[in-house]
């Protein structure tokens, strides 16, 4: 090598061979990690496409000999969730009914709070912010019982409104923090200019601040949609039996004590339930990263 290096006069871009020890190690680790994380998904998909007799053979890594979509249909329409046997479909729609308003309300309230905390300093705003910070560190199970009492007093316990309220309240600390930090990174002079122009609290928020904050709105919406969709505890406690979200229904299918364990239906039901957050991440991944980066780095 030394002799070659001596004979070739360095000129232009330095040659970069593809197979260097560093690259081999990096790609090796990436591939192993990817396989490790993909394996369970592979097992779930293959199992959900097999019939029960084939599953009983016990070779979980083998691809299905006979592909069947029967378990998927059953999981969606007729698997038994407790006393009723309507599949996951009602749970899916309940989850939609819970997730949509909860996300909208919590993101909106948090955005306005963050904006007020940064731009409209009021007496005690620092104290309020400290409370919020503390709030984001307290595990919410601690406040479960008081919340039950509060929603019962408000006479909304066991309704969709209770779940929406609880999700909004518990989403506040982290979301407000997110918005506060983002708004704090926007130039203060913009806000001053808008005030000189005569714009008030809401006009500055809707016409100046919000249009500049689309990345952070994307992050907040993604966090809330996936978080609320995946929530089990609040759904089972506050929603009431009529409004159980998809996660609760899934649990009822998978953990049902009677009859044959239909692994293929369980797998199909699980994938169906996880599909929404997965799709959200796939579609919005770029936005998510951009928003996180925008929140962290100024400008």
């Amino acid at each position, binding site marked *: 090598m030394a002799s070659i290096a001596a004979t070739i006069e360095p000129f232009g871009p330095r040659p970069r061979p593809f197979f260097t020890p560093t690259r081999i190690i990096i790609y090796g680790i990436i591939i192993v990690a990817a396989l490790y994380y993909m394996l369970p998904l592979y097992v779930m998909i293959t199992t959900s496409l097999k019939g029960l007799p084939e599953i009983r053979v016990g070779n979980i890594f083998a691809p299905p000999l006979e592909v069947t979509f029967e378990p998927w249909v059953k999981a969606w329409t007729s698997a038994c969730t407790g006393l009723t046997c309507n599949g996951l479909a009602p749970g899916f729609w309940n989850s939609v009914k819970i997730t949509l308003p909860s996300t909208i309300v919590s993101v909106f309230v948090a955005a306005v709070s963050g904006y007020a905390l940064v731009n409209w300093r009021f007496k005690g705003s620092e104290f309020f912010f400290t409370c919020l910070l503390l709030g984001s560190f307290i595990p919410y199970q601690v406040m479960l019982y008081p919340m039950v009492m509060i929603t019962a007093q408000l006479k909304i316990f066991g309704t969709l409104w209770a779940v929406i309220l609880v999700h909004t309240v518990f989403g506040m600390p982290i979301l407000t923090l997110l918005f506060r930090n983002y708004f704090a990174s926007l*130039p203060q002079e913009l806000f001053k*200019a808008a*005030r000189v122009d005569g714009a008030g609290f809401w006009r500055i928020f809707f*016409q100046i601040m919000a249009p500049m904050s689309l990345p952070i709105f994307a992050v907040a919406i993604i966090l809330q949609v996936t978080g609320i969709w995946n929530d089990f505890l609040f759904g089972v406690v506050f929603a009431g039996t009529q409004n159980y979200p998809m996660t609760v229904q899934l649990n009822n299918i998978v953990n049902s004590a009677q009859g044959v364990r239909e692994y293929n239906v369980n797998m199909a039901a699980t994938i169906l339930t996880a599909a929404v957050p997965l799709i959200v991440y796939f579609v919005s991944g770029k936005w998510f990263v951009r928003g996180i980066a925008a929140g962290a780095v100024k400008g």
Partner: protein
Amino acid sequence: MQSSVSIKDLSLNFGAVQVLKGLDLEVGQGEFIVLLGPSGCGKSTLLNCIAGLLEVSGGQIFIGGKNVTWSEPKDRGIGMVFQSYALYPQMSVERNLSFGLRVAGMPRDEIERRVARAAEILQIQPLLQRKPANLSGGQRQRVAIGRALVRDVDVFLFDEPLSNLDAKLRSDLRVEIKRLHQRLKNTMIYVTHDQIEALTLADRIAIMRGGEIQQLADPHTIYNKPVNLYVAGFIGSPSMNFLQGTLNGATQPMFVAEDGTQVPVSTYAFEAAPQGSSKAVLGVRPEHIVLGDVARTMPFSTEVEIEIVEPMGSDTLAWTRIAGQPVTFRADSDVLLHVGQKVLVGFDPARGSIFDAQSTNRL
């Protein structure tokens, strides 16, 4: 002259920190006032108080004869231009200009008329449909000035508007702001830390330090008759030379430098005739020190050795020592100076300043 902006005993505290301390300022109709000072002296804070963006802790603000101490920014009859331009990034230039007018619910044809006029004055008609991101720094600042212009107000507030621009653009826009002022004849209050901007633009300069106005006067007075050591040292680049010594008051007042060098100061116009002997500082600007045979005609002259030579193009700056204390002086760039050269220099104390060493005030 009728007063346009009048500030009476204005103070502002952030917690225990006094940012503005009982400040008084009268700005005449159509006057161009520059607030000049180092960062942290309270000049931007004062401007924000005038704009109504900061609540004052005490005192009053009058704009156009109206007490606006409690008024909202939009009701004060002011337009403001910020250092970072503060253009609304998602709006086109035209909508940036018209935002305030639309908020005020002005009829559409009136808005169009005003935007067209501002665009014409600032030469930004071709840019009206662009977004701020597609403008250069100078163009953005023009739009920001336009946003103040369309409001058709009496008082313009500038918060270091040129600090984000490069040197060339800064001097171009400086001239343009001056031209704008001569055309519109509005009252303008302009905050900067750049003394060249202050000296070139201002009718009067207010030099601020620690929340107080040190001196409020026209540029010529500020430059030639600074009221204290701070103002003298702050204004001028390279800054004024200071010689430490003693002032002996008599029929022939004499400044005696620390090493005993005597400088006759009888030509100097004292505020009050000096009595006895006291510690004093003699300030001389580098351009008031003359070189060569002319120096002999000056009340004070001496031979010095040149230590450092800095050619600036238009002139040459030389470092030396007078009475053992470091001194710089300006020489014509055609006079070739070299290190170690012995030259005769002299100055007339009448063009200098003498300060009391204790109180630092002008004598």
